């Protein structure tokens, strides 16, 4: 007998049941409970804490995009920050004339176009080369921004305060307002992605990752699928970039350079490549780590570890990101999502194992 509330065993008899988003009502309920919790959470937090939540959610969006290209389609992307930047700069250019609920999706579309263009070589070549193509895109993007007078050559472009329902979002409400906007977008896009994975296009991504020749033989077009993966990943990145631009109230090239791309990769790996839960755990882990970096550097200084000409604080970031990437790849390649999975599987049949 199938229990709609708790899984007591595997009673799935059709693919439809197997691909269902929620196996039990309990799972659905717990997810809605999480969303409800996230909805009320800001009421209990101070401004800076809400800002941290905002950051985690925006990064999660970008990492979700990275997970589409790198995690699900298996295409290494070392230029995710550039795609995020495309969205941010699009939003920055359009913000003076358009409302934010238009500039954010347009930023996403711009990211998607950029992703599609970068993905073009995948019609002929394989992932190793594609990784290099994304690196080239990152560098060309940085250079182009640095040389465009309209983009202030990478200097800060201020984002206007937005109006919503005739109400101007001011200093006090800024982080709270954007928290809800970002949360809405994240929930929508995460659901869209979860659903996509059940469709033919989503499963084509995984098929092409696992064996593109077999996928080809089964009637999928590996090249087009890869371009699709890049474009979709670029869309998520673009949306994240536009939201980040509004959130931080300025667009600066430093937020979209190569080290940031590596930070996104670190987040995706720490969270677990090819996992939606991981796309949230990874950014949360690294943002919180990043916040404590300053304290860590000060602590190291107080231990007398600082010497002339060395800035420990600037060394800590690349050091920890690199260390985190390397250690996770060697010891837990499936990331934090794997721990989450283990815990969940323990409770899945618990306590009714019959």
């Amino acid at each position: 007998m199938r229990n709609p509330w708790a899984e007591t065993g595997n009673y799935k008899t059709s693919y439809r049941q197997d691909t269902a988003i929620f196996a039990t009502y309990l799972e659905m309920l717990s997810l809605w409970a999480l969303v409800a919790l996230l909805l009320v959470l800001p009421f209990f937090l101070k401004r800076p804490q809400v800002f941290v939540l905002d950051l985690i959610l925006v990064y999660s969006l970008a990492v979700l995009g990275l997970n589409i290209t790198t995690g699900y389609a298996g295409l290494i992307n070392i230029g995710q920050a550039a795609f995020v930047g495309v969205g941010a700069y699009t939003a920055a250019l359009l913000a003076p004339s358009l409302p934010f609920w238009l500039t954010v999706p347009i930023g996403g579309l711009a990211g998607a176009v950029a992703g599609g263009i970068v993905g073009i070589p995948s019609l002929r070549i394989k992932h190793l080369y594609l990784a290099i193509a994304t690196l080239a895109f990152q560098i060309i993007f940085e250079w182009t921004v640095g040389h465009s007078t309209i983009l202030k050559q990478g200097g800060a472009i201020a984002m206007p305060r937005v109006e919503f329902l005739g109400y101007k979002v001011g200093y006090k409400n800024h982080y709270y307002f954007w928290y809800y906007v970002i949360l809405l977008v994240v929930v929508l896009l995460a659901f869209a992605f979860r659903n996509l994975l059940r469709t033919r296009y989503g499963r084509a991504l995984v098929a092409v990752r696992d064996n593109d020749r077999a996928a080809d033989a089964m009637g999928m077009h590996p090249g087009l699928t890869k371009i699709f993966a890049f474009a979709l990943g670029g869309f998520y990145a673009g949306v994240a970039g536009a939201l980040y631009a509004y959130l931080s109230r300025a667009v600066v090239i430093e937020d979209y350079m190569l080290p940031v791309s590596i930070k996104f990769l670190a987040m995706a790996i720490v969270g677990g490549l090819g996992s939606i839960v991981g796309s949230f755990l990874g950014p949360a882990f690294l943002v919180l780590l990043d916040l404590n970096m300053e304290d860590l550097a000060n602590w190291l200084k107080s231990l007398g570890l600082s010497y002339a000409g060395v800035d420990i604080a600037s060394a800590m970031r690349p050091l920890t990101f690199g260390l985190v990437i390397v250690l996770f790849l060697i010891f837990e390649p499936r990331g934090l999502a794997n721990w989450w999975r283990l815990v969940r599987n323990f409770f899945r049949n618990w306590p009714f194992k019959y």
Partner: protein
Amino acid sequence: MSYLLQLLVSGLVVGSIYALAALGFVLIYKASRVINFAHGQFIAIGAFTVYALVVYLKLNVWLAFGLALLFTALVAFLVEKLFLKPLVGQPIISVIMVTIGLASLLDGLIHLTPFGGGNFSLPRFLPEGGVSFLGVSVSYPQLLAVLLTALFLAGFGWFFQRSTLGAAMRAVADDQMAAMSLGVSVEHVFALAWAAAGITAAAAGFIVGTVSGINLESLVAIGLKVFPAVILGGLDSIPGAVIGGIVIGILENLATGYLDPLVPGGGTAEVFPFVVLLLVLWFKPHGLFGTEEIERV
């Protein structure tokens, strides 16, 4: 005309640095199919080791150079043993990601030394001036750069053609299984390939130090410029790496000479190689000398 020649000559100098760096990169790729994103950091380690030995320990430049070669080779060797070896058999994505993580990690470690920021220049050890022919002047450091590169390339060429180790490395690159069954230690060869890459990287770093000043950012940037060079030459071709490196160096200088005046702000040399890279990927993805992969199901 002499302007063009001058650009070509300085392009050749820059190109020989890229060629050396690209050589090490291709060595690793050929042996173990790993794309090494941490190559620029090895170049930096080599260059800063020479600097530290010469300036802090007051060693002779050539002795310092030799020690730096050994030290960088050791670092690369240890990196392979510590970080790459545990990942043998893992999907290629993880292996490449590890090199990206390593790049970041080594960056952080270099930041812990006094070389993290600022410019450094080796004390001058070559006479002022230079030679000139056909209206083109070549300074002694530039001459040294080209000669040293030629020397290293010849040395590695000899090593691969004549020595047993070189033959073993070529065998592994050709067919890992067959090489293993004939008694070649593949593990050993992987580590050796990394050590050899460390040597070429250190040599490239030293040459940068003789031609111009060194700072972390520009050395790491050279590590990234390796990509256009190897893609142009073909990822798995050693002559391709050398020719690709030199061509990219020359193209870069031609871009500085002829495109910079057209672009506000200039600096086209930083981006032009990557535009070339994308064009090569679009139209001739396996480069000039790379082997096209033919896949059979």
